[in-house]
């Protein structure tokens, strides 16, 4: 009886997730399959099915711009994710100190996210311009040694991009982590206080491990942002100086649209997906094993509960007959 009711509700869960199934399979799986197929074709302006084997991949890995893009994404990814997470958590913790004007501060940290990058990118360009921006202003104040013009040099431009990226993205990380902090059980704080644990230790060693969900969310969001970084580059450097700040997504998007080489763009897209496929496969394996264990445990728990309930009610009517 219990089994049947559970299964019926499960059916409802499946009905409830029809949009999820539709989007994950109907949109992403099918679209990605098409993309991979097209990467083996000579598609130029519009996708077609003239097979050319691995020709696009060959050219891709001989293109110095692609190789620079791949190197950049790792440097950019690691530095901007670490920077964002650390800065975001510190901000969230400080925001959590029962401060006045919390709404104002939160809006200040979030506003960069709300603004079109076309213009904020330009403002950052100006601010990092040696003759116009922060460097010029500081030198006018008499600090002749002051240097802050990362975008002008091919070796440092990527760091300028990271600074602007942190400016734009930290607010969201802060908001997610703050939501996570607020989800931590109040009793924990009481207990920590009673035990005389200093605040900072509570935040670092007790609260942080308890908000795995929020951290995972913020982390994945950052990863997605890094992999798909496009607007920031276009607005800030257009991939320059030279090709020093090119990124894979920029490569893909420009080939699919303006450069009218869909086959090549799709090959690059497929290469972008390769490491993600590996990661997700590993994760799926882990999840699958965990789920199998959990399921066994859940079955037992439900069975026990149901038995208790029925015993308490003293009846055995079929609950979900309709």
């Amino acid at each position, binding site marked *: 009886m219990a089994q049947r009711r559970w299964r019926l509700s499960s059916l409802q869960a499946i009905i409830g997730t029809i949009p999820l199934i539709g989007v994950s399979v109907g949109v992403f799986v099918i679209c990605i399959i098409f993309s991979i197929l097209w990467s083996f074709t000579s598609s130029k302006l519009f996708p077609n099915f003239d097979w050319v084997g691995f020709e696009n991949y060959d050219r891709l890995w001989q293109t110095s*711009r692609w190789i620079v893009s791949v190197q950049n994404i790792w440097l950019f990814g690691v530095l901007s994710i670490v920077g964002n997470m650390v800065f975001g958590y510190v901000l969230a913790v400080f925001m959590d100190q029962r401060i006045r004007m919390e709404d104002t501060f939160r809006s200040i940290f979030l506003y960069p996210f709300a603004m079109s990058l076309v213009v904020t990118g330009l403002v950052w360009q100006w601010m990092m311009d040696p003759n116009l921006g922060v460097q010029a202003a500081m030198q006018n104040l008499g600090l002749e040694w002051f240097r802050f013009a990362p975008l002008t040099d091919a070796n440092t431009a990527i760091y300028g991009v990271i600074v602007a990226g942190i400016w734009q993205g930290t607010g969201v990380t802060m908001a997610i982590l703050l939501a996570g902090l607020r989800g931590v059980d109040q009793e924990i704080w009481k207990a920590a206080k009673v035990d005389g644990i200093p605040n900072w230790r509570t935040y670092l060693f007790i609260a942080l491990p308890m908000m795995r969900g929020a951290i995972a969310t913020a982390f994945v969001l950052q990863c997605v942002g890094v992999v798909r970084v496009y607007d920031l580059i276009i607005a800030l450097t257009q991939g320059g100086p030279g090709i020093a700040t090119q990124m894979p997504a920029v490569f893909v998007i420009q080939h699919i649209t303006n450069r009218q080489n869909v086959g090549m763009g799709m090959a690059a897209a497929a290469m972008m997906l390769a490491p993600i496929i590996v990661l997700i496969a590993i994760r799926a394996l882990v999840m699958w094993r965990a789920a199998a264990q959990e399921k066994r445990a859940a079955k037992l728990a439900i069975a026990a509960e149901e038995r208790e309930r029925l015993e308490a009610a003293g009846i055995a009517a079929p609950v979900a007959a309709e």
Partner: protein
Amino acid sequence: MKRFVTAAAVSAAALLGTTAYTQAAEVEVIHWWTSGGEQAAVSVFASEFEARTEHTWLDTAIAGGENARAATMQRILGGDAPGAAQFNPGRQYEELIEAGLLLDLTELAESEGWRDFMRPPSTMAACDVDGQVWCVPVNIHSWNWAWASIPVFEAAGVEMPTSFAEFLEAAPAIQEAGYIPFAIGGEGWQINGAFGVVQTSIIGLDNREAILNGKDLDLARELMPEVFETFRSFKPFTDEGSANRNWNDTTNLVVTDQAALQIMGDWARGEFAVAGEVAGEDYECLALPLASPTVSTGGDIFLFPKQGDPDVEAAQLEMASMMVSPQVQALFNNAKGSMPIRGDVDMSLADACMQKGLAIIEDEANIQVDAQRWLTEDTNAQMNDLIAEFWATDMSVEDAVNSYVSILENAD
């Protein structure tokens, strides 16, 4: 004027066999003319179209050529094709022609004699594919200009150069006087444009065509090293801020007499005009190469995606006819600051710099055909990447030439 209108209407109507009248239709036009001066130009087209016909111009402006072209392509694919769409002359739309997605303008073009009045001929060639006409060229923009600040040259005690070699010789003096000799921005297309002009001035138009159109790899190996070397010799005369600058901020350096010279297309005139500068007094426009000035035939074209609705197609033809008519050409190009696609229009309002250009364009020997005409977007973009990388890094000339040749070799 009136007679012309009637003639156009009749010819367009005749093409479709609907003699007496055509149904009023709406024609949606996608274009990327969104800034002030461009707005005035597009308004000429729109209001002339509505004044001369009973049809309506539905304006869909999407800033940025890439955005507008991508939107057009995607909407054609989605079955929501616009009535007309702006492109640059070249190979951007060859696949649209092959797929039969565009309205054939051949009959209209032949009845109005487009092939006869368009000049230079290469303008028409952009739309004339295998004897059929697929698009309408509306204007010509030339890349081959340099903008020089007269006060800077005076202050540095240097004569206006008559060749790049002379300029490079004088550049240290300008630098010592505290000015930026060579103003350039960091965007790929700025660098590439300047490179193209340097290339033309060193190897000449014929060799350029043999390399870019004829794909003569041996000639490229022979001639390109000097081009790359000369181009690099400009590098020491740029400023620190160049790596990340828009073209107009770069022009502003010349406008405000901080820099001596910028290589930039004829649209840069607008920046001087807005700042109230006068050609010949405050600044000089130098047609390039200095020894034998040329005009490059960039510009804009409109193509007309098929609609499957005879009324709209009739209106599309009337729009095409309107765009090339002499009166509209004069009004439009004066507003846009570009050169008309026919010689018989009144451009007496144009400023001194454009008059220079109009004189040069009359001789066919002075025409530098746009590289986009010969190379696909893909090949072109690969060259852009190469030249941007060469400019920004210390890539050797030898490597650069090898890459250049290999891009040409694989071009289709």
